[in-house]
């Protein structure tokens, strides 16, 4: 199985062979891989170097790599063939979700607006604080799902942006 992985701004190709060996960017790699916590933490000794990788969050995929913080995406060959990768990175469509339940204090934009990266989209009141949720990309606001003053669940899609 072939995967394409991004780590921050870096891109790598990983091939997992049926026999458990694997190659990275077509180079066969000698690594001793141990799953320390099921589905969460691996210890990998690769050419002598010792690495511990922990999955901080799955969605988006954030890794703790030896105490450093790395954004990652993984696309397998099927989704690659189908022409789309991880949500948002290839289609250019990004969902802005509520990170937690709260009160939607203010909606700063209208559908159809084009916004810069980091522009405020909504203000969410939660944990006794007002939190500005900003545009993760430069793009057009194609959908706004909730009005100011409504309570929203954690994970609710508040807005959809399409890259411009």
């Amino acid at each position, binding site marked *: 199985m072939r995967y394409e992985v991004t780590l921050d701004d870096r891109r790598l190709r990983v091939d997992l062979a049926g026999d458990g060996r694997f190659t990275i960017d077509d180079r066969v790699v000698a690594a001793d891989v141990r799953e320390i916590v099921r589905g969460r933490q691996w210890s990998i000794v690769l050419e002598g170097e010792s690495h511990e990788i922990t999955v901080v969050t799955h969605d988006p995929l*954030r890794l703790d790599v*030896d105490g450093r913080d790395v954004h990652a995406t993984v696309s397998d060959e099927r989704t690659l063939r189908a022409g789309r990768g991880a949500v948002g990175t290839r289609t250019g469509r990004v969902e802005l979700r509520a*990170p937690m339940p*709260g009160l939607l204090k203010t909606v700063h934009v209208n559908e159809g607006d084009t916004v810069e990266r980091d522009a405020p989209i909504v203000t969410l009141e939660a944990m006794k604080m007002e939190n500005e949720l900003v545009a993760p990309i430069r793009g057009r606001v194609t959908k706004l799902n909730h009005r100011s003053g409504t309570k929203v669940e954690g994970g609710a899609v508040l807005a959809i942006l399409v890259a411009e």
Partner: protein
Amino acid sequence: MLVANRGEIALRVIRACHDLGLRAIAVYSDVDRDALHVRAADAAYPIGAAAPRDSYLNAARIIEVAKRARCDAIHPGYGFLSENADFAQAVVDAGLVFVGPPARVQRLLGEKTAARRLARHVDVPVAEGTEPLRDVAAARAAANEIGYPVLLKPAGGGGGKGMRVVGRDQDFDAAWRGATGEATAAFGAPALYLERQIARARHIEMQILADGQGKVVWLGERDCSIQRRHQKLIEESPGPSVSENLRAKLGAAAVRIAERAGYVNAGTVEFLVDANGEFNFLEVNTRLQVEHPVTEVVTGLDVVALQLRIAGGEPLPFAQEEIVRRGAAIECRITAEDPLAGFTPASGLVALVREPAGPGIRIDSALFSGMAVPSEYDSLLAKVIAWGSDREEAIGRMRRALEEMRVAGIPTSLPFHRAALFDQEFITGRYDTEFVARWAARKTADLSDGTAAAAALAAVLAQRSRTERRALARADDPWSRAGREDALR
């Protein structure tokens, strides 16, 4: 002793009780049943629903529990009821001891403009500012007189809640509305006042202790300039910019204010220090503070244990000149906030925790694997405190500790803290209150080829593991259900 709080500070107070051989009684809201403070306490009582007003702010219910559980005293921790004079009075009226300054002191110093007057009275410099403002028109007029930027502050309480920096006249009305709303929510009082905003200032605070016999001592300062929206993220002691001379002046000023106020128990006097070392009084926090461990590891004193002794009527067991500060300490507040997404708060299941340990490291934490972080409360999860014989050693240890620490399941502030400890401003100690605002959220990790290869491999394995478990979780027996829960964390 009843501990009227939750999270790491409830556990901290319970530990102080147990260190002294005292029984500790916890209270908990519906979402905190499994919390460590509940399990560590000798007894624990439910006090209501998750929303603070239904539980941790429910003074009547808490006092009722204290009496039912036959407690002698209540420790309020920080936040919640800790600076509520009416609560302090109600505790005493119920025949219990309140561990903190008496209601009279809280009233006097809790009204922030009254505290400013008191400070001026004992010749402590106070930042240019106003009394509580009648309305937005009066406030705007005052702001124009003082000159922008100005600081809008709630008169009813401190701690950074409801504060707003206003840079120009046309933003004033919106800031006034926001600050009024937050002040009302946080302190039940909308009153605001104005202060001149001091550029590139440092937030320096002085820890004091006062016993019931009128003795007041200062323990040393903390530099808490690294804040975001007036919420502290890193604190240290000694302040890297504070000279021995300034320290003594701040200590003496803090003691004068405390004496004048008839202060009893632990407290903190906050100052703003400008680039020239000139200081202005800000406010008094009439309670234990989040960052008290920094002072504890430098002085070797247990501030919470001393709070309990003072509340029990004991005199302070040492004189000012017996307090010896040694080395340097730094605290990082690990919060459930995502610094890579504008510090948005996070809640959810903590799938995995590993806390650092070893030489010079102290952990005050409420974290455990499997913990559900609720969305109703402050986002503080754990405090990592590093001590060193000098600042350089403390920094080395803190970097290592942050590198060792793992929290998975929800985003935390770790990425910010890890970056901050390598920031040149922090290393040289020349930071100020704008540090976090200047901090560019996202730096790309500079991974070696080998590290990138290992990380890529793990990313693939994580993805596969998750896909497989999701497939398995379709079968509906108890095991796969448990598996699904694991997988979805």
